[in-house]
């Protein structure tokens, strides 16, 4: 019988190894798997490459891993916010590497990683600093850059409701990067608000099919007031 539920976040993240590539869902605090991040801070894996859109928007996001010296490289689109200080400090003394990708290119590279597409052309970032050094080609009269897929050893995602097969439904804009990151990691670990019986989720409404989820942890509801921590 399929049972993807783990007892707690500590067990769910126990085997994340030094040097792993980790995809972290969420957009600021929305849909952020902050309990899994907290467990990984506790677990202590080092030299991680972390792929996440926002770095520094919230204190319980990827900023926590950076401040705990667990990250050697960041790939993101928006490395700013009230909690980006530790990132800036580490960039200045070159103890961390930063790769900025346009948000759509970041999303598409991850989608490609999950979809078996190793590389694709996009018009985004042509003629800009972020397109420098990349192969280019003209299609439809416009310059395009060749971008490479991103895959992860692990992905942390946050969902609203799940079943033991690993199907996930999201709540509103909590969806953001979570469904696409779920597709692109060897092991996808989801924290969810609720785990329901198989068959209870609307089959038309499952944004992350069970095939993409390997571990589930049920969390307690988010504390009140979390909405305004973005500063």
């Amino acid at each position, binding site marked *: 019988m399929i049972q993807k539920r783990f007892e707690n976040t500590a067990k769910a993240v126990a085997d994340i190894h030094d040097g792993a590539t980790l995809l972290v869902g969420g957009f600021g605090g929305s849909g952020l798997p902050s309990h899994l991040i907290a467990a990984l801070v506790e677990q202590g894996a080092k030299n991680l490459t972390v792929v996440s859109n926002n770095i520094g*928007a919230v204190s319980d996001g990827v900023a926590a891993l950076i401040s705990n010296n667990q990250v050697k490289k960041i790939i993101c689109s*928006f490395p*700013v916010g009230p909690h*980006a200080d530790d990132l800036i400090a580490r*960039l200045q003394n070159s103890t961390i590497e930063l790769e900025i990708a346009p948000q*759509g290119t970041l*999303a*598409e590279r991850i989608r490609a990683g999950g979809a078996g597409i190793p590389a694709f052309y996009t018009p985004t970032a042509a003629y800009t600093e972020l397109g420098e050094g990349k192969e280019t080609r003209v299609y439809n009269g416009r310059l395009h850059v060749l971008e490479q897929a991103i895959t992860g050893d692990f992905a942390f995602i946050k969902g609203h409701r799940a079943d033991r097969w690993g199907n996930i439904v999201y709540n509103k*804009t909590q969806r953001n*990067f979570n469904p696409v990151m779920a597709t692109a990691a060897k092991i996808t670990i989801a924290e969810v608000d609720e785990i329901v019986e198989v068959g209870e989720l609307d089959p038309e409404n499952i944004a992350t099919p069970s095939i993409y989820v390997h571990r589930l942890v049920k969390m307690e509801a988010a504390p009140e007031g979390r909405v305004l921590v973005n500063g």
Partner: protein
Amino acid sequence: MVKEEQKVGWSKIELASRVAQDLEDGWFVNLGIGIPTLVADVIPEGKEIILHSENGLLGLGPKPEPGQEDMDLVNAGKEPITLKPGGCFFSQSDSFAMIRGGHLDAAVLGAFQVSEHGDLASWKVPSDPLGRVGGAMDLTVGAKRIFLCMQHTSKGKPKIVEECTYPLTAPRCVDRIYTNLAVIDVTDEGLVVQELAPGVSFQYLQECTAAPLKLHVSDERQSDALGVQQ
């Protein structure tokens, strides 16, 4: 360096209203962070404009009432918003497929600099060790029309320039510039002023602008002071 403009031109909300006036019924529009976000609050009655947010929604509605905020319903600036009836949710990759695929009728964006050729610099100032590109590059290559909505100058320095000195977001992408002082089109013949804000002379506008301007009509046309529409 030009004088800080004061007491002339449009307020931020009037500027947002001026932009909203040009958005057409049925358009799908993305609003950038900052002043562009205000456009959501001043769409004229009777127009259905469907607002898009990069983080995965169409049909963005106004800010929620205090106490009604939902951390799972936020805009691209991570601020709580609401969803209009007819709105829907999707993933970030689907959201950018929409953007990059050319499906948005317009994006209304902020800028650090814009050149007379429509080059846009909006993601990084040279002194910034980080940069904050977000969805700006995707929007500028993807949306059918790029409207800038910004203060005309920054700390007294012109933002409209002959050539951008800041890192580019995209070249040759801006269609129209809305500032607190004027509405200016980027054309093959250069920057053409379509409208001056109340109290703004063409001479003054040119002083605040580091690229040559032309007037669209032979006479200076002064805008009516725009009330805030709801």
